[in-house]
């Protein structure tokens, strides 16, 4: 099966420091690859470079077969919707002043897919998809619980109709009693939409439960892939 995301010899430097040292892995459609390792080992830097949120200092990133690292920003922009990040801090990933329904509608507008007639229904559908209702859509992030806010962030990511989600500690800021609900949602979305997940997580019990394969990093290097 072809890889959705293929990373080869990825290098990220911060000044003289080598944060990501020739890292290679792939994520297939419908599969979860967990990226694990102690804090500071380079997981988030790897993810940011794989999403081209930051240009890598070396190596290749292929998305659906297409090499991205040398693409001009204009071409990347057309590809970005297909690869969406979901971050750890559910409040930080949404604009504090924006109502939830507007935050979810924004990718549609930005990507020129907003249609006044069908847009609101599409937003309602996305909210329902993640277990939120119209009333949640009228609120702002601080008026939602952490779990609801994380769901809203996922709805916003889904608005772009992604094929890959890069989940950077998506549940570690959530209350334990709320965590399982969000994980179930992620599992369900993956099964029904065939999404590929790059899942950054330091909870090994969770990784064993949730991921198909695991890539372990230490000091910027990949030490094991299973």
């Amino acid at each position, binding site marked *: 099966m072809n890889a959705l995301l293929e990373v080869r010899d990825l290098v990220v430097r911060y000044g003289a420091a080598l944060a990501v040292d020739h890292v290679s892995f792939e994520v297939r459609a419908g599969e979860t690859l967990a990226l694990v390792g*102690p*804090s500071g080992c380079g997981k988030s830097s790897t993810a940011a470079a794989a999403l081209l949120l930051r240009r890598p200092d070396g190596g290749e990133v292929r998305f659906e077969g297409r090499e991205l690292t040398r693409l001009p920003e204009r071409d990347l922009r057309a590809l970005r919707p297909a690869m969406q990040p979901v971050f750890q801090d559910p409040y930080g990933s949404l604009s504090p002043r924006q109502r939830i329904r507007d935050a979810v509608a924004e990718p549609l507008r930005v990507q020129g897919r907003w249609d006044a007639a069908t847009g609101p229904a599409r937003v309602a559908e996305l909210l329902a998809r993640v277990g939120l209702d119209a009333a949640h859509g009228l609120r702002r992030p601080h008026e939602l*619980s*952490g*779990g*609801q806010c994380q769901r809203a962030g996922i709805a916003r990511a889904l608005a772009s109709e992604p094929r890959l989600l890069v989940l950077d500690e998506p549940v570690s*800021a959530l*209350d*334990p*009693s*709320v*965590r*399982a*609900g969000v*994980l*179930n949602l992620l*599992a369900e979305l993956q099964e029904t939409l065939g999404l590929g997940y790059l899942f950054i997580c*330091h*909870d*090994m*019990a*969770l990784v*064993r*439960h*949730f991921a198909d394969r695991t890539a372990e990093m230490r000091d910027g290097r990949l030490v094991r892939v299973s």
Partner: protein
Amino acid sequence: MSADEPLLSVRDLRISFDGAEAVRGLSFDVHAGEVLALAGESGAGKSLTARALLGLVPRDAVVRGTVRLRGGTELVGAKPRTLAALWGRRVALVPQDALSALSPVHPVGDQIAAAVRSLRGVSRREARARAAAALDRVGVPAARCGAYPHELSGGMRQRAVVALATAGDPDLVVADEPTTALDPDLRDQVLRLLAERQEETGAALVLVTHDLAAVRDHADRVLVLYAGRHAESGPAAPVLDHPRAPYTAGLLASLPPAAPVPGRGRRLPAIGGVPPAPGEPAVGCAFAPRCPLAEDRCRADVPGPRRVGAAAERREVSCHRSADLPGALGELFREAV
């Protein structure tokens, strides 16, 4: 004083801000040599309770109830002078945010020596020797005594904080873990270290954690809080293996299983809903809106702690239905998958 007199007794502790109660009537004992975990979710009142054990509460908090040390010293409402005399000698805090506990402008060895000097009134030279020994005990080599906090790795810094907190051989150490404790390896390291020190000195240790899974490895007893109230307490192993409060059972059921459960795929039993917002009026059991067993009396009256099992176990459950709960409580939450 009798041998089984608790080191610390907390009775009906209530902490409120602006009329909103965050800790709503907690009672528990801590015995010498015991490791007690205070477990619960964000906002459950763990940190407020833990800090009240040291007489440290926010300035704008109203505290009621009693927190009494063996020998009779009352910490609630104690004068700053009284508290200052206890800190480091009888009670000590290990904040898990090590940087906030250490001064950035002095070498760690000097900071510990200064603490030893003020606690023991020994000479400068003697204090320095004791500081080096204290650091050595927690695995920080003598050569690093002169290092500033920012020159140490995260793990070394945590060790230095443990050395600082335990330099005066306190009877009770309180370790508060922030919600964002990032590195689980580091956390385990520090907890093991604290447990070792505790075994050497016979002090009691109160661990604050939001992670029930960590409790089994590190605590003798556990007190599970929900929305500022007691949910369940007792010896760690039986509470975790056979929880008797619906909240504890739901929380444990929602953790990823150690081995895959056939036929369930990746779905986890989830507790529906969310914990109450801070200050939300407390009519009835705070868990009732999320509890699959809730009935009318749950929504009307607050359940108080009731003993279950043998008296020696000191196990209590706060649930109106504690007498008629089904055996496999976790199963109730499996439905919600």
